[in-house]
């Protein structure tokens, strides 16, 4: 009986599957339709600006999207059009690297101390850090930040910006690292301690390899915060050669006139490219880091 029934059930499921296949999967079409349209909306402005950067000048004046003539010279012009630009790029790189390295390091140390060490008063520290997320300290504290930098003689100093830049994403970075450290079982540190390892040795040898993806998330978070910072750099520096690429580029629109759209676009592409390239290279670990608890912290 069973052997004879089997082909029949297979036939029934096949027939059912066939009927299902014929039915138009509207749900799936709508789902992918919305997602594809969203992706197009996301990518369109970036493709458009890239296209603008290789348009010939007459084509750039008209708002036609696809140009008649391409011209790649704008990238050369872009690097020479503003004479302080190489210095601005250098300033941006210096500040961004310093922020990424310093904030990420102190966030790793703090996250470790808050999760895996019996730090006295950690509840209070955490409460203050959480509270800071609800206060727009960068805006409201600006008057006093200016005063501090002035007392330290760091107004109009590119190096001086390193100090306030550390707080751009500090609280968030500590939360991310705390979330990632919490996914590591405490027994791991416990057993290493029994074996006689010091707390820093445990962090370096055991913890760091395990929180690597979280560190990448923190590095990228700080890259975005520092590379695009505008308010502090604009307020605390005056001379154009002391300023960052972002500040100069954001104000170039006014000082530059509307004459050289492709050159502006080329500068823009130069400014966003480091971030996008870096992201494409590390996105695998970044995604893993996000899933490992960076967003649960």
């Amino acid at each position, binding site marked *: 009986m069973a052997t004879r029934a089997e082909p029949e059930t297979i036939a029934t499921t096949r027939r059912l599957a066939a009927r299902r296949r014929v039915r138009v999967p509207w749900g799936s079409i709508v789902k*992918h339709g*919305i*997602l594809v349209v969203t*992706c197009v909306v*996301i*990518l*369109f*402005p*970036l493709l*458009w*600006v890239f296209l*603008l950067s290789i348009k010939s000048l007459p084509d*750039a*004046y008209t*708002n036609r999207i696809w140009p008649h003539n391409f011209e790649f010279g704008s990238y050369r012009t872009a690097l020479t059009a503003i004479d302080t630009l190489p210095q601005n790029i250098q300033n941006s790189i210096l500040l961004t690297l310093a922020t990424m390295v310093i*904030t990420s390091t*102190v966030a790793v*140390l*703090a996250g470790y*101390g808050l999760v895996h060490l*019996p*730090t*006295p008063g950690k509840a209070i*520290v955490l409460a203050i850090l959480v509270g800071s*997320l*609800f*206060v*727009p*300290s960068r*805006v*409201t*504290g*600006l*008057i*006093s930040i*200016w*005063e*501090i930098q002035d007392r330290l003689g760091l107004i109009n100093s590119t190096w001086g910006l390193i*100090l306030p830049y550390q*707080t751009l994403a*500090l*609280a968030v970075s500590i939360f991310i690292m705390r979330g990632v450290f919490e996914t590591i079982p405490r027994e791991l540190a416990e057993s290493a301690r029994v074996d006689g390892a010091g*707390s820093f040795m445990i962090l370096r040898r055991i913890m760091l390899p395990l929180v690597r993806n979280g560190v990448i998330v923190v590095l990228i978070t700080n890259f975005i915060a520092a590379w*695009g*910072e505008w*308010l502090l750099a604009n*307020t605390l520096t005056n001379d154009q050669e002391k300023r960052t690429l972002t*500040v100069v*580029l*954001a104000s170039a*629109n006014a000082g530059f006139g509307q004459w050289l*759209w492709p050159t502006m*676009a080329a500068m823009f592409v130069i*400014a*966003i490219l480091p*971030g996008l390239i870096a992201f494409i290279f590390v*996105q695998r670990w970044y*995604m893993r880091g*996000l899933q490992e608890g960076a967003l*649960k912290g």
Partner: protein
Amino acid sequence: MASRAVTARSPSGTAALWRSTTRFARTWPYLLPALFFFVGWQLFPIVRTAWISFTSFSFLLDDSPESASWVWFDNYVDAVQDPLVREGLLKAAIFTAIFLPGMIFLPMVIAVLVDRVANQRLAATYRVILLVPAMIPGPLIFLLWGWMYSNGIGPINYVLVDVLGVYDLANQPTWLGSGNLTFLSLAMMEWWWGLGFHTMFYLAGLSTIPKELYESARVDGASEWRIFWKITFARLRPILLVLVVLRFGTAYALIDEYILTGGFDRSKPTYTWTVYMWDTAFQVGDQNRGYAAAVGWLGTLGMLVVVLWLFYAFRNRD
């Protein structure tokens, strides 16, 4: 050392003190570097600004806040009556009201859709593309969208005027011109930027919902709509609260985009309390920083009240 000598009489007390001291010495070095920057350039400045707000400190008239006179709440009394402050607070509130719903619900919809994509490679591709704008810094996003919205070269008006013919050159929308359309334009720009990043938050929340929950609900005959509200939305509520509070904070205290869009033109909708604060502190008149500090703190206090209310509104009713 002195305290050790005092407690030396009771050996157990000494031992306890010694233990807690060493515990401090062994653990706090991990926190101190972070706290150095946090206290120095985040916590102290906001407190110091509050202190300055009680003085008549004008940068061009006084050497330091200490040499200015202490005026108690005079700055606050003036600020509350200042039409620029009132308008500034209102303008920021209008922008927040336009911006916040889109920034909270669009990513939720996208996250629910991405979560249902069965093909893992395709789902990963969607995630990466959605995250691309998050890798571009804020002011550069603004620059990019300034071009998008432009009348001369902007592709948006090109499509509306030349392709679709909905408008002509005379009545085409000036997106970043004046009126509340500016806010909508800025909001759309911010949505574009934040969509991917916020989607990731929701996806992290969705991944914690066991799939059996959906299956058993379906077996029980619940409709998809009911399943969404009772399971998906209910589980995403904590994330929703965090995002509402965080985005409310960034939206209400927005300043970069406003200065870059409208400059310091007081008639523009972008002249909000934050821009007024900056203008007063660093640009106009005697650079009255005491008053500017009061304006800043007034806005901050308003925000804290709303945040507390949000926590109250979202409190767990179960």
